[in-house]
């Protein structure tokens, strides 16, 4: 094969024929088109008429050019040109196929896997041994084996959500003995050590690198600055402007995950990073669980958010103030000063506060509460609230019956309290004792100058010792705590202002509040704090950036966590420790992204560009077309064109494809078409084969409905969930194809609105032949990904008395092309019970919003225009029966959508019993 740039020729010698073109030109020029002989009786009238202008006998130049092009196309076509001819690797010796398989590969993993398959095919053709390894896996011994054995590993090859371990592999390659050639599928990111590994591989044999020239985006962990959440987006290439849309995701009030806010990051030309800020109300901000760059599908485009972004809401309650205007003496002044920088303070009446459900309530010198308030507060604490109380004159003066135990106080108080170090008292002001081990304050330094002059005193009590978490040097309790349900009550035995002690003036006060988890977690300043701790992964990111809850991964030590570098032993995700959660993200705070740079002389190829495109057929086709045009033109020139023209024109038009099928448009015409009758609709997946089958299936089902029932559907419509209005359709058939993109945020909103307003989506994963217990298919995973954003109620397998089993036909099986798995519908309410003598429960549950199954119903329903089935179902008459049942299922579904739970009404019981033969 001879190559000229990107084009290669299989038979280059034929190109010499092009030299003959000039000769052909001269020959053709000399021969005019042959005259046409005609019988013409009126010739007598012509005799003596001369041609006015002596037109040349030669062929017109454009006709010549056309013929030349035709012949040139013929010669070129026969010489077998191929775009991107696959230049074979040196075809001997073993071949090592390396794939980075990092998070950056996840988006294009299918293409990479196909390319690896091609490489294995090539190796098999040339009889080479192959070893296949991913660089994100731990280096192991390279084992060169027969290609067909290696190919079996290919489907299981998955990218990992961390960077390739290049230095480990460099070592491993250096140790390998034999020489081999390498094909390296790179993720295109400049990981440290890439050049070293490339050099090590080049020493062993030839190295070819396959890369997709794409821009990879990543997000850095968020920071909280001046009331906004700031995070940086990175990209590998800075050659053009780009906009990356970043979404903050978290639970909505109902608990299902939703997009809370979206901000676009704009990269200027030449910039590889862009900062964006989310300015959100505290309520929303606290709900954020992760940030995600939309449409990227990689682990680096998702950052998990841990407690560090969380700002606690603290409700402050003081006794009704009678000292208006004395700000510095306000019992809450120092609390406000201490809390405001790191928490959101909620003011208001007691009732309003509890409604806002703050994390912490601080009560300064509040002695008594109304009984209802007290009960509400106790319930709030038992649900996990933290109540912090400060003493004061009122509390000290409160006439608490010594026999009763105030549940909102950790200890029983003696009436009065004590005063030391004052003008009218003995003794010096008391200092704080060092905090004992095991208390929340352990390790805090006690400043000398902090003294207490007045305090309330606890009644001695057997439980007192357990509840003291800070005391004075003389052993009297200063801070006591009592757990209550999931929460606790903490009492400072001094005031929250500086009247009784100067504790609120000191920095210790803030630290103590922090330790009490009154304040939100600050980011870990010092990773050494993590030493000796153990962390359990709670949520782990996949390479595609999907968050998965896990409970089977081994724990990670604090030291490992402190490195912040993700790897096989520490995948990115959320790690739970004792009292807080830490997020580990793919890109650490100081990370940068850059495109890979290869050592000079490395051969770099595209991944998909290496598919061969033979051009011969196109050129020969062009030549044929040119000759046909020449024929027409010659006929036109010699006047033989009439009559033939019409036929040829028809033939040419017949070659053009028929106009595209009815595609839904967002205009009135679409609305009219969709509402002029009952229209069954299917969701366009973008996979034309699946869409065609769905359309044919719904057409078949519509015909059956027309023939057998009073429903007379119009022609089914394919809808684009992104652009089309859904509310016209009673039923959406949604075949799941793993090629389809996830719906956008707007589309999800539309789908949820559709589901809530009585629409029904029939999800069909079409995989009942493959999927079984414990084995997930790609369609199943796709369905999970799609359904994550949908408002789907709890589901259950169709119970035998579900209204679907009797809306039109009495059915117990719901087969499609496959008669496999059970199908799932909305769960019936828990209280429903079967009454005596009734064949079904009394369920007034409305229409199930989703039906999920995998039996490939559309294929069973699909018929062509003549009503002939398009796909084989089962075998013989059993197959026909199965198709019939599939049609009956379809009829029942449509009936269910249109009539709701009508057949669930008990009034039908006698008739149904009669039909059931009971």
């Amino acid at each position: 094969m001879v190559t000229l740039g990107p084009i290669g020729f299989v038979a280059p010698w034929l190109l010499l024929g092009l030299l003959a073109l000039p000769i052909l030109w001269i020959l053709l020029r000399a021969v005019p088109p042959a005259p046409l002989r005609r019988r013409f009786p009126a010739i007598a009238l012509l005799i003596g008429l001369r041609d006015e202008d002596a037109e040349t006998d030669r062929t017109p130049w454009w006709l010549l050019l056309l013929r030349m092009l035709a012949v040139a196309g013929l010669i070129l076509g026969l010489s077998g040109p191929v775009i991107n001819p696959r230049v074979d690797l040196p075809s001997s010796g073993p071949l090592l196929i390396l794939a980075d398989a990092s998070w950056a590969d996840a988006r294009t993993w299918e293409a990479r896997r196909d390319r690896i398959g091609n490489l294995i095919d090539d190796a098999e053709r040339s009889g080479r041994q192959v070893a296949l390894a991913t660089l994100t896996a731990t280096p192991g011994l390279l084992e060169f084996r027969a290609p067909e054995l290696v190919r079996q590993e290919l489907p299981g090859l998955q990218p990992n959500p961390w960077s390739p371990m290049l230095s480990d592999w460099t070592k491993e390659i250096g140790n390998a003995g034999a020489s081999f050639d390498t094909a390296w599928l790179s993720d295109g990111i400049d990981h440290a050590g890439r050049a070293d590994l490339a050099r090590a591989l080049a020493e062993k044999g030839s190295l070819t690198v396959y890369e997709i020239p794409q821009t990879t985006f990543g997000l850095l962990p968020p920071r909280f600055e001046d009331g906004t959440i700031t995070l940086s987006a990175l990209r590998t290439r800075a050659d053009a402007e780009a906009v990356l849309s970043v979404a903050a995701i978290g639970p909505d009030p109902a608990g299902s995950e939703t997009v809370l806010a979206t901000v676009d990051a704009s990269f200027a030309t030449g910039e590889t990073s862009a900062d964006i800020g989310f300015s959100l109300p505290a309520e929303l901000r606290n709900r954020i669980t992760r940030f995600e760059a939309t449409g990227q599908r990689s682990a680096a485009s998702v950052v998990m958010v841990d407690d560090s972004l969380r700002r606690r809401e603290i409700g402050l309650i003081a006794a009704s103030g009678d000292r208006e205007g004395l700000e510095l003496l306000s019992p809450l002044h120092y609390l406000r000063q201490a809390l405001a920088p790191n928490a959101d303070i909620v003011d208001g009446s007691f009732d309003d506060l509890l409604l806002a459900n703050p994390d912490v309530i601080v009560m300064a010198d509040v002695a008594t509460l109304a009984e209802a308030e007290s009960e509400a507060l106790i319930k709030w604490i038992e649900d996990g609230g933290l109540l912090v109380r400060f003493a004061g004159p009122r509390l000290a003066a409160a006439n608490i019956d010594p026999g009763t135990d105030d549940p909102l106080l950790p200890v029983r108080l003696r009436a009065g309290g004590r005063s030391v170090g004052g003008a009218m008292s003995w003794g010096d002001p008391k200092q704080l004792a060092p905090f004992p081990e095991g208390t929340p304050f352990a390790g805090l330094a006690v400043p000398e100058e902090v003294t207490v002059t007045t305090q309330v005193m606890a009644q001695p009590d057997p439980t007192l010792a357990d509840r003291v978490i800070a005391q004075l040097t003389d052993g009297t309790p200063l801070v006591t705590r009592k757990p209550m349900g999931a929460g606790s009550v903490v009492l400072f035995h001094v005031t929250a202002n500086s009247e009784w002690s100067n504790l609120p003036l000191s920095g210790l006060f803030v630290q103590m509040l922090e330790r009490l988890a009154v304040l939100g977690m600050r980011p870990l300043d010092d990773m050494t704090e993590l030493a000796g701790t153990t962390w359990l992964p709670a949520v782990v990111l996949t390479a595609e950036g999907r968050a998965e809850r896990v409970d089977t991964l081994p724990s990670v030590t604090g030291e490992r966590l402190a490195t912040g570098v993700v790897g096989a032993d520490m995948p990115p995700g959320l790690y739970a420790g004792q009292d807080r959660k830490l997020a580990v993200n793919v890109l650490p705070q100081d990370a940068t992204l850059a495109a890979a740079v290869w050592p000079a002389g490395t051969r770099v190829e595209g991944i998909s560009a290496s598919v061969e495109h033979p051009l011969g057929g196109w050129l020969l086709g062009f030549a044929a077309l040119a000759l046909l045009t020449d024929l027409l033109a010659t006929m036109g020139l010699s006047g033989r064109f009439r009559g033939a023209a019409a036929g040829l024109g028809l033939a040419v038009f017949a070659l053009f494809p028929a106009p595209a099928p009815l595609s839904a448009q967002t205009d009135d015409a679409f609305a009219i078409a969709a509402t002029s009758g009952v229209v069954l609709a299917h969701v366009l997946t973008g996979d034309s084969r699946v869409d065609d089958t769905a359309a044919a299936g719904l057409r078949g089902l519509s015909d059956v409905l027309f023939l057998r029932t009073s429903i007379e559907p119009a022609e089914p419509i394919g809808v684009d969930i992104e652009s089309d209005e859904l509310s016209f359709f009673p039923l959406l058939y949604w075949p799941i194809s793993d090629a389809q993109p996830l719906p956008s945020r707007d589309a999800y909103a539309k789908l949820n609105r559709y589901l809530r307003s009585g629409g029904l989506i029939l999800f069909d994963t079409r995989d009942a032949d493959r999927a079984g217990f414990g084995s997930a298919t790609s369609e199943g995973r796709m369905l999970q990904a799609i359904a994550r954003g949908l408002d789907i109620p709890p589901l259950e397998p169709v119970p035998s008395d579900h209204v679907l089993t009797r809306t039109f036909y009495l059915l117990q099986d719901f087969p499609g092309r496959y008669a496999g798995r059970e199908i799932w519908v909305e769960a019936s309410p828990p209280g429903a019970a079967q009454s005596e003598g009734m064949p079904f429960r009394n369920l007034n549950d409305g229409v199930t919003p989703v039906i999920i199954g995998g039996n490939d119903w559309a294929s069973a329903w699909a018929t062509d225009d003549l009503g002939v089935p398009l796909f084989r179902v089962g075998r013989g008459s059993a197959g026909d029966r199965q198709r019939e049942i599939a049609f009956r299922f379809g009829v029942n579904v449509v009936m269910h959508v249109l009539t709701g739970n009508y057949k669930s009404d008990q009034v039908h019981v006698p008739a149904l019993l009669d039909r059931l033969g009971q």
Partner: protein
Amino acid sequence: MTDAPALRARSEQLAAPLPALLARAEHLSASVVLGDHGRRRAGLGDTFWQYRSAIPSDDARRIDWRRSARSDTSFVHEKEWQIAQTVGVWVDHSASMRFASSRGQPTKADRAQLLALAATILLLRGGERVGCLESATPPRRGNAQATEIAAQFGVEDPNEFGTPPAASLTRAARVLLVSDFFGDIAATEAAIATAAKNGSTGVLLQVVDPQEEEFPFAGRTIFESPSNTIRHETRRAAALRDRYLERLAQRRDRLEASAKAAGWTFGIHRTDQSPAAGLMWLYQTIEAAR
């Protein structure tokens, strides 16, 4: 070669819907023959004219006994005196007429024969005497004559172009000439002159093919006459179109002028027109001339 019985059948079919065509009767004593044209006086004929009292000179067998029995005197049954018109038909059978531009169309000869024979049948039905101009078929009455004339039409003329015979059947006859008139125009004029001299009037019907009318040709073309004796080559046929049409118009003008001068009528029929239209035109022409 046209199948004579078939041609007759088709002609009958075409002639059926029209009312009987009565050629104009002219008072020409020499050619008075018993016919269907009443002379408004008693004489020889088929239809009843009057009863008159018998006079002694009347032959006894002419007395109408049925009428005479109702009265005392004898009556004679007199019939209206009727005459018939003689019509001479000539259809061009030359090679030039055996041309059709497309498969779906009849040749000019076919259409000419059809029209001529349909007219013949109408004339015969009206009691006229019809004969062929060029052959020995004498003018006769009766349906059998149509078969005779149809047989005559089947005879092909080997010549390139046909010329109407310059002979007339009888004096003061009607003449129907059907041809494309692409041949020698002088011969046609001579024939008209001869017939007119005999006191005959007539109709010229030019039957043309649509191609001859429109000249829809382009490109390099060699035109050949039907029997391939004349050729004309052109490199751009389209350029000839205007001049051809001009010549065609000139020829028609000349034919029409000479027809008018002799009191004749000139008409054109295209083979892509309905034959009924042509027959209707013939009928109207003869009606108008009456």
